């Protein structure tokens, strides 16, 4: 992991990459759909941050009781991240049950966000070859998105595999952070597929 220092703060590169991806992702969605992205997008990030942060108190309960303000500076680490992803998965499932029309947006938006995120991470680590290749994949997906091609299961798996290959070559595909992202992707593919079958019946 890279850490970038701005004056009085040192921020991890993944946080910066994620924040950039959140806003650029929303802009790309807006450019194509001609409307703002739905609440589920922002709620997912809020949920992630809330669980990731608050789980610090759960995993370091004694430290938290001794110095409650430490919650300001720290987060729940890897375990917190796992909980946060589970939280997002449950939230999206619940939302899909409640109003099924958002479900087709999950996967394309998932790809736009994480492809942006990884491009940012490679750029921050100043690995220019990886950044360039990742950008090509990102642009490829955006083109796909703008052409309104339906993101069928096969295409989704294809894009996931391309990403897995890039991470295998330039980063660590098997790190917990990356595996969690892939798990979420596979979960969304299953969710979309499952939902389609339900409609057909």
């Amino acid at each position, binding site marked *: 992991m890279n850490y970038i220092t701005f004056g009085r703060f040192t921020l991890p590169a993944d946080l910066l990459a994620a924040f950039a991806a959140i806003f650029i992702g929303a802009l790309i969605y807006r450019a194509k759909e001609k409307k703002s992205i739905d609440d589920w997008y922002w709620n997912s990030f809020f949920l992630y941050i809330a669980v990731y942060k608050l789980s610090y108190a759960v995993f370091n309960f004694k430290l938290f009781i001794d110095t409650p303000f*430490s919650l300001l*500076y720290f987060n729940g680490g890897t375990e917190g991240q796992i909980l946060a992803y589970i939280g997002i998965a449950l939230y999206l499932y619940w939302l899909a049950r409640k109003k099924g029309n958002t479900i087709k947006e999950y996967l394309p938006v998932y790809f736009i966000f994480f492809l942006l995120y990884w491009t940012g991470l490679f750029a921050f680590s100043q690995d220019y070859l990886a950044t360039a290749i990742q950008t090509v994949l990102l642009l490829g997906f955006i083109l796909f998105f703008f052409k309104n091609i339906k993101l069928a299961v*096969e295409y989704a798996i294809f894009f996931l595999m391309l990403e897995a290959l890039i991470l295998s070559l330039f980063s660590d595909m098997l790190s917990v952070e990356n595996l969690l992202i892939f798990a979420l992707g596979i979960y969304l593919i299953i969710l979309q597929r499952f939902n389609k079958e339900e409609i057909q019946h």
Partner: protein
Amino acid sequence: MNKNLLSFAILALAVVILVVNIWKPGSTESEKNTTAPAGESVETTEDIPGAKLSSLREGAEAPDFELNTLDGKTIKLSDYRGKKVILNFWATWCPPCKAEMPHMQNFYEEYNDQDVEILAVNLTNMDKGADEVKKFVEEYGLTFTIPMDEEGYAGTTYQAFTIPTSYILDENGVITKKIVGPMDEKMMKELTGVK
């Protein structure tokens, strides 16, 4: 794209990913070994004597200092060559420093045997006196070395204006990273590369 072609592409990708991941660990290890020492020697020779700011760059040798510790010993930073060092700057009145201390203690207890040393320099000239520092150290049960920067020399040299500020030094006393703000165990682990 044809569905069959797509399925074939997916299958082919799966094989390539498998091959890359199995073949990779050995190759990156040897890459790191060959590039790291070369990088270091280039960086250290670039160091211009007397240019204070540039001597704090990542990749430059950490400026040496000699300080008395809280328990009355005298230490020099250069005594710790051969070990990775987390050089931390703190004061008792600083909330993020307080938040960081238990994490630093946990990290120290767990990884001290892996040649990682923690030097938590107290900015004594800006703190409330040695007694207060002693009380703090006892309260938090800190067992790593606490050098006392009574003149404020080390703090100034290392530009510890916003605290906590930490420098990660490698075995050759070269700065690998400057971190402003508190760290937890995970971050210290990533930065020092302990397993």
